[in-house]
């Protein structure tokens, strides 16, 4: 079994070290403009929320997979899992808010022991629910195999990872056997109506580059994925979201080991797009960590950069007005969300 950086006590499991690498690892990186300077150039500094629309909860870092690019450093050896008490705090915050969308992520969010209960509760609040599924989990134990029907029952939007339309590239990033199991899960989701026109059950795929390069046009990649997956497996889906790999955690490790870091950062920085910066997801999202700590986004969560001190730090202290007035924390990794057409959990931002 591949171990997480944390279990290996790897240097890169330390967020402070990761940020130091991004800023100072080489002469080239030291000379790069800072994200703050680029925001100043386009009058976006300090970066502030436009209003929270998406409540993203990371319900735990435990996962059945150990993908090479994972920014969470998730895996079977991670035991950080959100407790029922913290989930209750989330529900309390949602009850007192107009936030429309609850986005569940992990790890494999399905592995949180309170997952079904929580989805039911959020569903009762009338919120839209997105589950970020790695697909393979849906082919493991019977309790997970039953999830597609459960998702359909609660009108959950299933947004799942599939980095490429073929086996070799998918398995190289996500582990041997991933592609075949993902296809099996997608077929099951299609069978009950997910991704099928008129069913109202939304099935989206997330594409992320399987190496040190940026995603191409989302529209064009969606077309190609639809063509290839339909031709090879008869699989349908609604949208493809392209996500740029952010240079943190295991992906940062890959960039360092393959000697691609300088070049990759240069690509991200020279591709800085002011429109993408304007539409970054941290402006309309709040990210709740497994222990209830509040972050500007899931990436800041992994870098242990909680929301600024003036804002509530924990979900139990929820105060939407204060959070909407906060200054969003930034660093060099943020260039990942502002390159080209932009990148967010919902794909491009321009």
């Amino acid at each position, binding site marked *: 079994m591949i171990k997480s950086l944390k279990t290996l006590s790897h240097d890169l499991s330390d967020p402070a070290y990761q940020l130091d690498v991004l800023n100072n690892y080489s002469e080239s990186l030291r000379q790069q403009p800072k994200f703050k300077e680029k925001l100043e150039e386009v009058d976006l500094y300090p970066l502030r929320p436009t209003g929270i629309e998406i409540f993203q909860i990371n319900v735990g870092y435990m996962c059945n997979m150990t993908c090479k690019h994972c920014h969470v450093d998730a895996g079977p050896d991670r035991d950080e899992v959100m407790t029922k008490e913290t989930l209750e705090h989330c529900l309390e915050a949602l009850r007192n808010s107009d936030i429309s969308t609850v986005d569940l992520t992990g790890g494999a969010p399905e592995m949180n022991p309170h997952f079904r209960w929580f989805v039911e509760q959020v569903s009762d609040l009338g919120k839209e629910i997105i589950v970020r599924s790695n697909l393979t989990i849906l082919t493991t134990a019977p309790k997970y195999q039953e999830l597609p029907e459960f998702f359909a029952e609660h009108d959950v939007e299933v947004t799942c990872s599939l980095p*490429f*339309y*073929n086996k*070799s*590239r998918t398995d190289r990033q996500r582990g041997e056997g991933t592609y075949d199991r993902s296809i099996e899960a997608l077929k099951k989701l299609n069978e009950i109506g997910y991704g099928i026109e008129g069913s109202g059950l939304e099935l989206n795929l997330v*594409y992320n*580059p399987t*190496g040190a*390069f*940026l*995603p*191409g*046009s989302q529209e*064009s*990649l969606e*077309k*190609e*994925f639809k063509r290839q997956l339909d031709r090879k497996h008869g699989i349908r889906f609604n949208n493809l979201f392209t996500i740029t790999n952010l240079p943190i955690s295991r992906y940062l490790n890959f960039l360092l080991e393959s000697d691609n870091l300088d070049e990759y950062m240069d690509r991200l920085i020279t591709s800085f797009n002011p429109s993408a910066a304007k539409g970054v997801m941290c402006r309309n999202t709040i990210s709740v960590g497994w222990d209830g700590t509040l972050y500007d986004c899931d990436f800041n969560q992994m870098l242990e950069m909680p929301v600024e001190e003036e804002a509530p730090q924990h979900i139990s202290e929820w105060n939407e007005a204060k959070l909407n007035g906060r200054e969003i924390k930034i660093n060099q990794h943020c260039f990942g969300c502002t390159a080209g057409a932009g990148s967010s959990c919902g794909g491009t931002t321009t």
Partner: protein
Amino acid sequence: MSDSYYNPKDLKKFEDVGEFGPELAEKFFDYYGAVFEEGALSAREKALIALAVSHTVQCPYCIDAYTTESLEKGASEEQMMEAVHVASAIRGGSSLVHGVQMMNKTKDLSM
């Protein structure tokens, strides 16, 4: 003075060729950009054609650039290698087809 003919870092300086002649460079890059836009051929198909041609003209800058471009546009390794074989087949074929000329000449000269 450089001690080699090709330096990967020079690829990034491509647009600097305008320094010695901005007008023609501008015209060229406008044209270049338009050529690679999505059209009757997709941007991915164009990247694959460019990758094949890069191998025909054996331009290391172009090979680096269009390998990355093909990957970004969502081409698979199989598609990229097939494109290179197309270049190779045409290149080999263009030599071999001249064998007909050789045969014609031989026949002209022979008893």
